[in-house]
C-alpha cells in the first residue's frame, strides 16, 4: 500500500526547502479517524496542574480519566506527594441521569478532611459538561466551609485541543496567584513557568539561579506548592520554559500584574546558557550577569569533554522528533546538532503558525515538518528519512522500535533529568545508548544492509 497523507490533513505536513518557510496548517481539531498522538483538553489541564504537590486533584467524571492519569508524570516533589494519588468521583449511571453535584460535594469534603490539602482542583470531564453539573457552585460552597481555595478547572475533553486545556489550567492558576503574602521578595526575583520538575529538573535550574543570586519565587508548577503560587505575582520577571502551555499565563500576569516575561529553554547547553544570560540581562543587574558568565563557564568546562566523546560516535546520525510544544523542538534541534546529529523529521502536537516558521528556520533543508501527526505518518516518515534515533513519548516508542530504530523518551513520563548542563550530558548519553546500540544491526532492515555492505567488501 503506498502511503498518502489524509486529505483532511493537507497542509499539516511540509518539507523544508531553500525557498524559505511555508505556512503550516495547525491549531485545529484532530481529523476524525486520523489516530492522532494528541489527547484532549482534560489532558492539557491535568499535565499543567499535576505537579502541584500539596493540592488535591479531583477528577470529576467516570473513573477512566482519573485512572489513566494516576502517577503519570515523573514530576518530583521535595515534600508532600498528594499529586501522585488519583482521585475520582467515579460517576455511575445514577449520576449521569440525576446529576453528579451531590457526589462531587461529598467526595470533595471527604478527601479534604482526609488529606488536608492546601487547595483543591476539580477537573470537569466530558460528561460533566453534558449533564450540566454546576462545578463552580459546588467548589465555592465547599471553599466557604473548609477555608482553602477550591478551584473548578473547565477541562471537558471535547472543549478543544490540549492547548485549550492549558488555557483552562491558566484560568485556574490565576485564581490562586495574587492571593498570597508579598513579604520579603527582592528585585532579583523570578517565577519559572512551564517547568514541571520532571525527574528533578526544576531543582537543577533553581540551583543555577541560586548561584546567580536570583530568587525563584515560584515554579509553575514543578515541585509546586500552593502558597508559593499564591505569591507568584510579586516576582519581577516570568521566565517561561514550556512556551506552549505557559505563554497564556505569562501574558495574563503581564496584563494583570505588570510582570514582563521571556521565553527560554533549558534543553541543550546553548539554550541553557542563553536562558541564564537573558534572565540576567532582563533583571539588569551586572553582578548577576557576571555570575551567570562564571556559572556557564564552569558548567561548560564540566560537560564539554563528555559531550565531545559522545559526538565522536554520533556524528552523522539522523534524528526525528515529535514533541508536545515547539519550543522544545527548537532546543532539541540545536542540542542534537551540537552532538553531530541532524534532525530530518520534526513535529509537535500543539505548535502555532509562528512557531512552525521558526522550526523551519532552525531545521536543515529537506526536513519533514508535521503538525498533529499520526502513527502511520510517523512510521512512514521514519523510514523515508532514514532516521537512526527518534525522540518522543511513550506512544511513539513502539513505532520506532518496530522499525528497528533507536528511541529517546523526552516526554513527561521519563525518569531522567534532561534539562540544564548536566541534563545535556544525560540527553547525549540517552541518544548514544540507543543510537549506537549493537542490537540494531541484527534487525531485519539494517541487517540486510549490513549483509549487502559485507558482500560488497568481499567482492572488492
Amino acid at each position, binding site marked *: 500500500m503506498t502511503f498518502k497523507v489524509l486529505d483532511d490533513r493537507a497542509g499539516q505536513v511540509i518539507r523544508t526547502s531553500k525557498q524559505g518557510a511555508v505556512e503550516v496548517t495547525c491549531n485545529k481539531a484532530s*481529523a476524525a*479517524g486520523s*489516530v*492522532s498522538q494528541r489527547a484532549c483538553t482534560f489532558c492539557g489541564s491535568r499535565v499543567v496542574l499535576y505537579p502541584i504537590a500539596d493540592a488535591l486533584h479531583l477528577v470529576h467524571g467516570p473513573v477512566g480519566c482519573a485512572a489513566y492519569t494516576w502517577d503519570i508524570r515523573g514530576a518530583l516533589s521535595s515534600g508532600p506527594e498528594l499529586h501522585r494519588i488519583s*482521585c475520582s468521583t467515579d460517576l455511575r449511571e445514577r449520576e449521569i441521569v440525576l446529576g453528579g453535584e451531590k457526589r462531587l460535594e461529598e467526595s470533595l469534603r471527604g478527601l479534604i478532611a482526609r488529606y488536608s490539602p492546601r487547595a483543591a482542583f476539580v477537573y470537569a470531564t466530558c460528561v460533566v459538561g453534558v449533564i450540566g453539573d454546576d462545578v463552580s457552585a459546588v467548589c465555592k460552597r465547599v471553599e466557604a466551609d473548609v477555608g482553602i481555595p477550591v478551584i473548578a478547572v473547565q477541562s471537558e475533553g471535547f472543549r478543544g485541543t490540549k492547548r485549550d486545556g492549558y488555557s483552562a489550567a491558566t484560568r485556574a492558576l490565576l485564581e490562586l496567584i495574587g492571593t498570597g503574602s508579598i513579604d520579603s521578595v527582592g528585585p532579583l526575583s523570578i517565577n519559572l513557568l512551564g517547568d514541571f520538575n520532571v525527574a528533578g529538573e526544576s531543582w537543577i535550574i533553581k540551583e543555577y539561579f541560586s548561584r546567580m543570586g536570583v530568587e525563584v519565587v515560584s515554579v509553575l508548577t514543578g515541585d509546586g506548592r500552593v502558597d508559593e503560587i499564591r505569591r507568584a505575582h510579586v516576582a519581577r520577571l516570568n521566565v517561561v520554559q514550556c512556551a506552549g502551555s505557559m505563554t497564556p499565563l505569562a501574558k495574563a500576569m503581564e496584563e494583570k500584574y505588570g510582570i514582563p516575561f521571556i521565553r527560554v529553554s533549558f534543553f541543550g547547553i546553548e539554550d541553557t546558557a542563553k536562558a541564564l544570560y537573558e534572565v540576567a540581562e532582563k533583571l539588569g543587574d551586572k553582578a548577576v550577569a557576571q555570575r551567570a558568565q562564571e556559572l556557564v563557564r564552569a558548567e561548560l568546562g564540566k560537560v564539554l569533554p563528555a559531550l565531545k566523546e559522545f559526538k565522536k560516535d554520533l556524528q552523522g546520525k539522523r534524528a526525528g522528533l515529535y514533541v508536545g510544544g515547539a519550543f522544545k523542538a527548537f532546543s532539541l534541534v540545536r542540542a542534537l546538532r551540537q552532538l553531530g546529529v541532524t534532525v530530518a523529521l520534526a513535529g509537535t502536537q500543539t505548535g502555532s503558525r509562528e512557531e512552525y516558521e521558526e522550526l523551519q528556520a532552525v531545521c536543515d533543508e529537506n526536513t519533514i515538518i508535521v503538525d498533529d501527526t499520526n502513527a502511520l505518518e510517523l512510521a512512514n516518515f521514519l523510514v523515508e528519512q532514514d532516521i537512526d534515533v527518534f525522540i518522543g513519548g*511513550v506512544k511513539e516508542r513502539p513505532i520506532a522500535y518496530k522499525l528497528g530504530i533507536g528511541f529517546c523518551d523526552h516526554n513527561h513520563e521519563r525518569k531522567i533529568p534532561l534539562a540544564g548542563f548536566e541534563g545535556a550530558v544525560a540527553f547525549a548519553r540517552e541518544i548514544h545508548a540507543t543510537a549506537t546500540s549493537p542490537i540494531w544491526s541484527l534487525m531485519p532492515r539494517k541487517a540486510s544492509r549490513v549483509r549487502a555492505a559485507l558482500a560488497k567488501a568481499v567482492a572488492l
Partner: protein
Amino acid sequence: MTCATEHALSHSVSDAATVNPCTLCAPLGAVLASAGVQGAVPLLHGAQGCATYIRRYLISHFREPIDVASSSFGEAQTVFGGESNLHRALDNVARQYQPKLVTVATTCLAETIGEDVGRLLRSYEEKRDRHPPVVSASTPSFKDGHVEGFHTMVRALVESLALQRGTPLRSVNVLPPIVSPADLRHLSEIASAYGLSPTILPDYSETLDGVIADHYRPLPSGGTRIEDIASMPRALATLDLTLTGTAPRASAVLCERGVPMRLLGLPIGIRASDGLCDALGEISGASMPDWLEMERGRLLDAYADGHKYVFGKRVALYGDPELVVGLAGFLAEIGARPVLCATGARNRALRNALEGLPSGTVEEVIEDGDFGAIEVACRRLKPELLMGSSKGYHMARALGVPLLRVGFPIHDRMGAGRLLFVGYRGSAQLFDNVVNTLLEVKQSASPTAFSYL
C-alpha cells in the same frame, strides 16, 4: 469465608471518592478485544483523549504499537451529535488502514448525549458503496470497567460475525478472559494437541506480541481470522474461560446458535488445567498427549519440591475477577492462603465464584473497590505476599510486602506479553515465581548470607 463488611465494599475508606482505581474504563477492554481480530481497527466514538489515553496505557504494558482511532468530538458534535464525525472517521480509517473490520465502541460522552450508534452506522452503510464491515458495542464507563468492556466487544463480534451454519467442523471455540499473549499461544497449543482446531477470540497473541519486520505494517499480523469467527457456530463446543460473568456472554450467543458450552474458568493449577484438558479430551475423544502428561507431572514434582515454602502463606490478590479466582484456586491448591481477594470490577460475581474454595481460605472479598480500600484491608489481614498489577506497587512498598506482578497492567517490568500462567507449564512458572519471591524475602532478611536454601 466470612462476608466482608459494607465498609470494605464501599468505594473507599472514609469518603465517597475513588482513590487510586483498581479498574480501567470499558472502552479499553473493547479495544483490547478488537486488537485480537485479524485486520481490525478499533474506533472510539467520542473525544480524542479516550483513544489516546487507552493507546498509551496499552502500549506501556504490551510494548507494541496499537492504533486506536477516534471520532474526535468537539463542542459542535457534543451539542449536535457525532454522525458526520463518525462517518468521516470511518472513511479515514478505511483509507489509511484498509482494514478487514472496524470496531466501534462508545465512550462516556457519546453515551451521555444519547448517540444511537446503530442508526449512525446504518446511515453510513446507505451512503457508501464500499466500506469495511463494522461491529459496534456500547461501552460507557459509568456503567462498567474494562473487564465488561472486553466481554461486551467479544459478544458483539460473535453476534455480528459468527453466523455461518453448516456441517460441524473439528474445531473448538475458546473464549478467554483478559490473559497474556503467551497464555493465548499456550491455550492454542493445548487445544491443538487434542486434534482440535481452536478458534480463540480474541487472539492478540501475535498482534500484541509481534516480531520486528523490515517494514512497518499499518496493521499487525495475527489475530482471529474473520472467517474463523464466522464459522464459530460450526464448532464442536465452546470453552468459556470466564466464570465471573453476570451479563450474557459470547458463549451464550454461540449456545443459541447450537454450540454446546462448557464453563471452565482460567486453567491455573493442576485441578483447573485438568478441567480444561478433560473437556478437550471429551470433545475430541483423544487422550492427553505425552508431552502434556509430562508437563503435568513436572508441575506436580515442583509442588512436591516447594510445598513447604508456600504452606500457610497469607497472600492478597487483586485485579480482574477471573484472574483473582484463578489464582485463588491455585493458591488454595498448593496450601497457601488467598486471604484477600479484591477487584475493582463492579459485576459482583467474584464472591460467588470463590464459594468453591475450602472454608476459611479467603478471609475477605472486596468488589468494586479501589486501592485505598485494598490497602486498608491489607493492613488488617497482614499478607506476606501481594499478587496483582503494577498499580499495587505503591501499596506494596508502603506495606513492606513483596509484589509478584500478574495480570494487567504491568508498567514497570519487561515482558508482560511473555508471562505465562495457564496450563501446567504456566502454572509451573507461576509456582516457581511465587516460591522464589518468598525465598528472596527470606534470604534478604536473614542475618546470614545463605546461598543454599
